[in-house]
């Protein structure tokens, strides 16, 4: 191993640079390092474990569920917990345990994808506003200010009535209303890079704007945004659950934590298990993600951590 002469692809072109590991590998290393740093914070380990458990439950729901979550069995309405139905059944005889698992899956799926869309859109527009030409930047800032001026849930109510309730509508609404805050953050960070020497160097070598933004500026901007995104996930989970609770989010028969909670609250005199199956995953998910976000922020943002003492 020691005698092996180094033959990187870079040396063939006559450069002496060491080849950098691929983006995926670097990303994975960053994730592991971040997770370690978060776990070192008080409650960070516990929240990381909780979020991991919930994610595992959501991903493995098809295998962990004992029944089809939408299969109706009117013979077995409002049953208590038994060996066949671990958490009992609901008003249509559907298995509560399976519904809770799938509800969690839907809640996390909606929250994570909506946050991801908002983050991606906000990041791109923010980078463009910060480093692009000024005639693009000014209208974008006005757009950010306009969109973030809406009271989201009221606007959601109006939009959902008009466009019709569906999972896609919820994702879209959340993405639109959250993108501006990421956009603003990304713009502030990117404007600070405007005069950075490494970007000047890239520009002078003739690197185009898209490559400049995505390859060179993005890695310097994305970190703090990811922290904020991780703190927004629980809020988005709550919004989705609230809309589904009102019947304006994920549509039946697809189970969602919010709609299970609504059913459970309506039939609370028949069975207490339904309310628990709706509320418990919801509360655990928001608690887990909130504490994880706090731990991440304290671990990665030394400025904020210092003000915490």
């Amino acid at each position, binding site marked *: 191993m020691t005698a092996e002469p180094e033959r990187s692809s870079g040396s063939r072109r006559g450069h002496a640079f060491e080849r950098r590991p691929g983006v995926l590998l670097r990303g994975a290393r960053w994730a592991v390092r971040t997770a370690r740093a978060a776990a070192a914070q008080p409650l960070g380990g516990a929240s990381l474990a909780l979020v991991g458990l919930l994610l595992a439950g959501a991903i493995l729901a098809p295998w962990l569920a004992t029944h089809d979550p939408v299969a109706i069995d009117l013979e077995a309405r409002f049953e208590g917990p038994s060996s066949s139905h671990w958490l009992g059944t609901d008003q249509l005889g559907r298995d509560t345990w399976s519904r809770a698992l799938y509800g969690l899956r839907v809640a996390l799926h909606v929250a994570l994808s909506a946050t991801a869309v908002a983050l991606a859109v906000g990041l791109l527009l923010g980078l463009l506003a910060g480093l692009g030409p000024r005639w693009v930047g000014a209208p974008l800032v006005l757009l950010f200010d306009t969109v973030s001026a809406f009271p989201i849930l009221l606007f959601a109510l109006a939009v959902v009535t008009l466009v019709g309730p569906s999972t896609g509508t919820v994702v879209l609404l959340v993405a639109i209303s959250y993108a501006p805050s990421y956009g603003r953050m990304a713009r502030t960070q990117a404007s600070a890079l405007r005069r950075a020497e490494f970007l000047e160097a890239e520009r002078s070598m003739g690197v185009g704007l898209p490559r400049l933004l995505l390859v060179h500026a993005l890695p310097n901007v994305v970190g703090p945004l990811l922290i904020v995104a991780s703190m927004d996930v629980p809020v988005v989970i709550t919004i989705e659950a609230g809309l589904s609770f009102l019947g304006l989010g994920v549509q039946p028969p697809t189970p969602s934590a919010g709609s299970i909670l609504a059913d459970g609250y309506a039939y609370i005199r028949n069975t207490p298990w339904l309310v628990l199956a709706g509320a418990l995953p919801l509360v655990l998910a*928001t608690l887990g993600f909130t504490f994880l976000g706090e731990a991440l922020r304290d671990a990665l943002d030394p400025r904020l951590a210092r003000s915490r003492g």
Partner: protein
Amino acid sequence: MLSFTLRRLGLAAVILVVAVSALYGMIHLVPGDPASVVLGPRATPEMKAAIREQLRLDDPFLVQLLHFFGDLLRGDLGTDLFTGRPVAAVVFEQLPHTLVLIVCAIAWAAALGVPLGCVSALLRGSRVDRFAGIVSVTCIALPAFVVALAAQYLVAVRWKLLPALGVGEPGDLASQLRHLVLPAFALGLGWVGYVARLLRASMVEQLGSGYVRTARAFGLPERRVVGHALRVAVLPTVTILGAGIGGLLSGAVLAEIVFARPGIGKLIYDAVSTRNYPVVMGGVLVSTAFFVLSTALADGLNALLDPRLRSPE
């Protein structure tokens, strides 16, 4: 300061115009004839034509929009499709209920959050501080409507301590206050944690600053030192609370629906389910205006306190 105020008000106006146009556009892009929705399947073509005339559905879209803005400037928000009353009257009848709820929620959040944050900052790093930190983050994390459901079920249904639904008898202050307790509690709980954390952060900063050290060096009693620091530390929290009124407006929707309280959220929700478009428009318009104004006010307060924020960048 004048140019800041003008710029901020201009932005608020732009936001309102864009918001109203977007909403108006969406209502008219949706498939389905509002006239048939309102009148039901047994309507005659003449009745439908009358409604279409009343809603100006046959005009080109831009003409409709201009008419709408013209009416708006005269304070006319249209008429409720079902009762025939002016929408402005309906909306402003419901608005006070929501405002009272929001103000009470903020008041109790500040009353508990400020001392909590202050004590945490003074006992920084102690067990009390860590416990208070966990409690405040938990408050932030709990979904408000789950808290509302739990409070309603336990306190009102199970223990029968407080009324579960409604707003109380008009004119009977005690009954109205009793109806206010649970919704305000549920709505404000998250803000308790938020205020506590915010105040703790700014208080820690103030306690480490030069004037506090000087005051201590002069031998001022600790109580007065804390008083001076708190007076400065509370400012960011005040401005955040101003901006938070908008957030509470959203949260109030769910609280009002869970507790069947009249209010602007419930009004819009009910109008949405009956497709009562003018009421939806009017409600969203008034609450967006309220939201935009409160954030502008909070920004103004911020700029008044911190002159660095007045320049555009």
